[in-house]
């Protein structure tokens, strides 16, 4: 096959997967041009990603919840509440940070599991049970912050999670050396993983893309990783928020695509009855998915509290809707069974880019909401149309 026709058919077959990346690229390019390059500056991109972190981790968990045909509206105030608990433990009870974080994460799992029990065992629709939980957490957040109002957190290690950057071990031409090294390692790992994947396929005598296409893919992705690294290295390097988010994405991507648990989650999402008759414990999967959602809500609360260096009475407001929007923009299907963790992250970055770009351009907040709403609708329309074409 000719190089270009092969590239074209690959693009056509995977248009749904690539659509989001293309959309992100177009949005970023547009803002970069309109702001004379201000948008793509190291400082802005770094801020943008840091501000996305606490929504991105929620979007990861929400992806799985929507994949198994449920929804969780409680994650925003759950995050706010658990962030406040973390602040109280650190500031008022004097619990050290290395204990606070695991305790909050476990608390998140327990809270999530509780939702899971209501949904899977009692049989309450997730929309209703999580709406109830949302009200409860909102009240709980007000209750714990009632006497003191905003709780200031002074723990430096904790606050670094939301504001800090990886330690500097030196600079090369104004760029953070550690970040450059990490970027290089990621590229090396990516190239190694892709080559061994290809080798394995050849060993099984399966069809693989031609050498040129394969090389093009390696070079293309490597350049993107290198470019992002270069941009971030120009402004303090990788932040802890970005590192934590990437680790969460990596773990969940692996879980969902490579493990038995992941397959079971998608099986439950695409047909719960069939999953049960296939020997999959649907209840258990529901507990796990809601438990993971709770844990990620806790993480989101920690990141947000650390970013503000304080817990406020309104922390977490509307986080759940941002997370849900990110998941849908990222290609998750409301009908269940379809959706990728990586897609939702891109969805979160798309939404954050819109906000950031429009802020730089001085677009009024009223128009910002309308435009973000339109983008959400467009993303879902695109998804529906491409799905029909394939079906």
């Amino acid at each position, binding site marked *: 096959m000719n190089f270009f026709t092969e590239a074209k058919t690959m693009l056509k077959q995977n248009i749904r997967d690539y659509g989001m990346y293309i959309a992100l690229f177009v949005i970023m390019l547009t803002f970069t041009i309109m702001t004379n390059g201000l948008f793509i500056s190291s400082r802005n991109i770094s801020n943008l990603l840091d501000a996305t972190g606490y929504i991105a981790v929620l979007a990861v968990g929400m992806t799985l919840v929507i994949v198994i045909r449920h929804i969780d509206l409680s994650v925003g105030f759950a995050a706010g509440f658990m962030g406040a608990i973390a602040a109280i433990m650190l500031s008022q009870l004097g619990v050290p940070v290395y204990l606070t974080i695991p305790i909050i994460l476990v608390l998140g799992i327990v809270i999530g599991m509780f939702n899971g029990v209501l949904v899977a065992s009692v049989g309450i629709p997730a929309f209703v049970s999580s709406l109830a939980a949302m009200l409860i957490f909102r009240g709980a957040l007000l209750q714990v912050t009632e006497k003191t109002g905003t709780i200031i957190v002074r723990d430096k290690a904790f606050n670094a999670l939301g504001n800090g950057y990886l330690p500097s071990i030196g600079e090369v031409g104004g760029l953070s050396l550690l970040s450059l090294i990490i970027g290089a390692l990621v590229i090396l790992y990516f190239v190694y993983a892709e080559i061994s994947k290809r080798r394995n396929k050849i060993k099984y005598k399966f069809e693989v893309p031609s050498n040129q296409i394969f090389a093009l893919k390696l070079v293309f992705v490597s350049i993107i990783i290198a470019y992002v690294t270069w941009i971030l290295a120009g402004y303090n390097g990788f932040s802890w928020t970005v590192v934590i988010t990437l680790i969460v994405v990596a773990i969940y991507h692996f879980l969902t695509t490579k493990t*038995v648990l992941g*397959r079971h989650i998608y*099986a439950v999402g695409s047909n719960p*009855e*069939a999953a049960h008759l296939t*020997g999959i414990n649907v209840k258990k999967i529901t507990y796990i998915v809601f438990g993971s959602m709770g844990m990620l809500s806790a993480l989101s609360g920690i990141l947000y509290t650390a970013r503000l260096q304080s817990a406020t009475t309104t922390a977490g407001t509307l986080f759940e809707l941002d997370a849900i929007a990110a998941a849908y923009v990222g290609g998750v299907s409301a009908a269940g069974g379809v959706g990728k963790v990586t897609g939702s992250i891109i969805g979160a970055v798309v939404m954050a880019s819109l906000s950031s770009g429009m802020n730089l351009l001085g677009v009024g907040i009223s128009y910002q909401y309308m435009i973000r709403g339109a983008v959400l609708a467009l993303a879902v329309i695109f998804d529906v149309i491409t799905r029909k074409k394939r079906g």
Partner: protein
Amino acid sequence: MGGSILDKKNGGSAKRADGNILEMRGISKNFTGVKALSDVNFQVKKGEIHFLVGENGAGKSTLMKVLSGVYPYGTYEGDIVYEGTVQQFGKISDSVKTGIAIIYQELALFPDLSVYENIFAGNEVKRGGVIDWNETIIQAREMLRKVKLNVNPETLIRDLGVGKQQLVEIAKALSKDVKLLILDEPTAALNENDSENLLELLRELKNQGITCIMISHKLKEVIAIADKATVLRDGRTICTLDGSKGEITEAAIIKNMVGRDIEDIYPKRPDKRIGETILEVKNWTAYDSELGRNIVKNVDLHVNKGEIVGIAGLMGSGRTEFALSVFGNPRNYKLDGELFVDGRKRNFKHTSDAIKAGIAYVTEDRKGDGLFLIQDIKSNVSAANLKGIAPGGVINDNEEVKVANDYKSSMAIKAPSVEQIVGNLSGGNQQKVSLGKWLFVGPELLILDEPTRGIDVGAKFEIYTIMNKLINQGMSIIMISSELGEVLGMSDRIYVMAEGRIKGEIAAEHADQEKIMQLATQ
């Protein structure tokens, strides 16, 4: 424009002479490069019952969708001449206006509305723009009388059985002054009694001058009531058989459908080696707390190694419920009695326990609760045995493709690749994927629930052949089936169920249709 008027006139005079209500001329239809219909010619005389037969994918449903306007004028080639006029249906309501009604396999009723609301849904009886419910009920009673359905018109659809729902659909069509009634596999989901009733009703409608086109895989009913039968194969008209000339025979239909003779519908299994008992249930009772009654009652049954045990009976006789209660009890019935697998008393808490003990259950409703329709072939095949491709919990994608490819070729699953989405496959191929999924688990006992429902003759033969191969490899099979021919042709031993009880056990060599039906209707 002038040309088309001329066409109509010509068509008109010609049609009245030969008595055709419908003539489809040179119909061709493409789906993005795939030719679904090519140059199909199809003529239906007024007042006849005309069957459309053919294997799955032969183009029967597509042809009917062209006729009813689901595929509008302009998306196909050729002419539809209906009642002497060339029709250009742009949407379904256009064909409805001319008296064409189509009833699909999946009924299009509103389960939570009453019978009368359903009959007049979309065709409400109005007075001054307001629905006249009293008049609606009166007219609904009249329609129900016509289809001989003796139910209160205020009954909710969900409280009716499938057979009665089918009749409501027909009543709905009659309320619109239907002239040409199209039924797409109306008896596929019906038991023998309900099927009989339906066929009887069609005969009566015919006497009232209603023309009927019916798609069916059940050759017996074709032979029983067809005036004509048109055979489609690979999107082409093969022939039209005339019942009055005695041309409609099982052999003739099958030969034209598959393009070759099928010597025997049920492949022989020469060397039978029946071993020791593998499954036994004693005094097995299942209580459904939602229905508030026992759905399986004091069942004693056993299955031996290397045996195909048929479970015959009418729909609703508790066969599927029995199978589910044995297979890990996914519907949470209250169980009583004893279950032995390989001589060990077992008490399965979950379907996964039953699977571990070597039991597999291929469901009756493969689309509803059997397959993951939005996933591809390979994910479906591996779903019940992911450990088999995931050493240490990490899935080996290549191994998965290899396994799926093996089943694809050994069972002749027709698909471009194992990455094909299962929802896009034909019924027969979907069933093979279902089978492949369970064979990959390597069970000792395979429970097949209606294994060939909605599958064409060729694919049926292939499924039977696979069953025999499995038996020869030492597997045992329980086959639940409403098709008596299949039960008689494939089983070594037959249990007949009715009202949740085993009414009798017959060795295959002593069984015949009458004996089974007699027990099933006790």
